[in-house]
């Protein structure tokens, strides 16, 4: 990756120039948690960033929760999203593959994805639910985002991970200089430090995630363990909705008050009982524990969602969202030790 240095007195100019005239989404601290929200570009007076991932994942803006899809494909506004973290990015690869490839392209996602610039930055802190380092991920972005930023003394290092990112740097290039050896080693040190921090956080919580998750999940475990694990799941689907990589949806049809047929694509959840039910009542995933295990299988067994590696990036959102206190890290541990 070709790292450039952006001096702190240039940062705001750069941010303003790439966000000019676009819809701007930035991390905002609200009652102790970080949320990605639209903000007026004029009110930006510092580089928009958060110490760790926001509550909302990127899919909220690219594959939006509910969208009218029965008619014409609208032209979307050019958008810039700041505050993407490393654990937000693998999901984009999953969504891109699913929605942009195959026999059919999903035109609504495609339109938003094309018009959205994604800016990611290293984490400087972590949440108790973070476990990126335990699933082969790092707390600093290395790909997929258009631009990646790291904090260094006196400014920021920036690199492009996509063609669009390269173009952005070229277009706004005047203010950059090549990163120095010193700056690169400072970046490396900081990156190692945050990686260590996530590891220590996991150790302190006594969470040890085995390396062979796929194997563990693939073994035919007695359903009894899963029955017990799934006991507190209330099938709300929150884990599905907050997950950056969960992409299931349903099409629903309704009549407007003027009698016009409206078709909406809405997020759906594989944790809900009716997700796979067919007429007559047959349902391959009738049991809650089967649905819960199914979700984990989809995250950790290739090539279900991802060709290689895991489809879970360790962002921990599903852990924070679960009112049944289900923690997939502990589930994996429990199943491994069963």
């Amino acid at each position: 990756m070709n790292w450039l240095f952006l001096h702190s007195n240039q940062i705001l100019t750069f941010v303003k120039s790439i966000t000019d005239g676009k819809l701007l989404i930035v991390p905002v601290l609200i009652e102790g948690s970080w949320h990605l929200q639209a903000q007026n570009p004029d009110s930006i007076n510092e580089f928009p960033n958060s110490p760790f991932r926001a509550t909302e994942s990127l899919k909220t803006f690219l594959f939006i929760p509910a969208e009218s899809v029965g008619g014409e494909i609208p032209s979307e506004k050019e958008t810039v999203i700041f505050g993407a973290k490393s654990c937000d990015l693998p999901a984009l690869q999953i969504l891109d593959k699913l929605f942009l490839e195959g026999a059919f392209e999903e035109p609504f996602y495609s339109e938003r994805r094309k018009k959205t610039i994604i800016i990611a930055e290293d984490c400087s802190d972590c949440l108790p639910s973070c476990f990126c380092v335990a699933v082969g991920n790092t707390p600093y972005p290395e790909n997929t985002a258009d631009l990646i930023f790291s904090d260094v003394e006196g400014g920021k290092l920036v690199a492009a991970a996509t063609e669009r990112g390269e173009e952005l740097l070229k277009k706004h290039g005047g203010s950059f200089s090549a990163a120095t050896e010193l700056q690169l080693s400072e970046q490396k040190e900081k990156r190692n430090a945050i990686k260590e921090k996530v590891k220590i956080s996991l150790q302190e919580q006594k969470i040890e995630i085995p390396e062979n998750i796929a194997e563990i999940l693939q073994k035919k475990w007695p359903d009894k363990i899963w029955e017990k694990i799934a006991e507190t799941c209330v099938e709300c689907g929150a884990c599905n909705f907050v997950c950056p990589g969960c992409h299931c949806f349903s099409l629903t049809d309704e009549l407007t008050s003027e009698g016009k047929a409206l078709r909406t694509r809405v997020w759906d959840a594989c944790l809900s009982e009716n997700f796979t039910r067919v007429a007559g009542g047959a349902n391959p995933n009738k049991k809650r524990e089967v649905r819960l295990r199914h979700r984990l299988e989809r995250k950790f067994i290739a090539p279900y969602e991802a060709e290689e590696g895991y489809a879970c990036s360790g962002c921990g959102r599903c852990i924070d969202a679960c009112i049944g206190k289900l923690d997939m890290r502990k589930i994996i541990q429990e199943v491994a030790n069963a």
Partner: protein
Amino acid sequence: MPENPYKSIPAKLLDVIEESGTIKTFVLKPERPILFEAGQFIEMAVPGVGEAPFTPSSSPAVSEKMDVTVMRVGKITEVLHDLSPGAMLGLRGPLGKPYPVDTEFKGKEILVIGGGVGLAPLRSLLYALLDRIDTYKKVVVRFGARSPQDIIYKDLMKKWTTNSPMDFVISVDADDTGKWKGPVGMVTTIMDDLPINISDAVAVVCGPPIMMKFATLKLLELGYADSRIYLSMEKNMSCGIGKCGHCRLGPYFVCEDGPVMTYDKIKNYEAIWD
């Protein structure tokens, strides 16, 4: 800009044919022709009410009209059954992969096993097979209905079982008319002594899940290779284009990788028959 795969093509309901107490055939004229191949399906919508997947039952060679045979089982199928000619419906498709009638099936002996409303999708396959009957060694059909009254497409069935290039036998689970002259028993009971050279044959199975299960087990027992058994998988579907996740079966999207799938691909996954 790509086309919108969620947008239905308006289709006018030309005729409604009553096939049995719970099954009707809807004859549709789409605003523009929908060219499909046997085995592919469509999503049919009652505008503003909802959509469901169905396999056309008409000949794939006919493009200006399309027949869809529907069993009344729930929300959308009930609304459909109450419609009269003239109503407007919506169609999306064709979706999924067709039977390999011109490739893997070519030069083979073809055994088709069907049950219940499974005859609807099979009718379009049989039309396609008849259109190229000379390219197969033979076509043998064994079909099971609950009772003589439940047999749909009665006139066509009479013709196909008595006077056609196919070896076609229908059995009924029970004869409630006292007039049935054919065999009585589940379809699996007429699968012994088939005039088929198994090593040179492919088998197609389509029907209710329970029938599919027992017919497949029977085929395996008879010695059919896993990869030569073509199953029509019925899963909950919404998008029909491999995106929404409803039809997931192991690593597959049944709507995109199927709905016809060979047994070797799916046998290791749980609950394939549910």
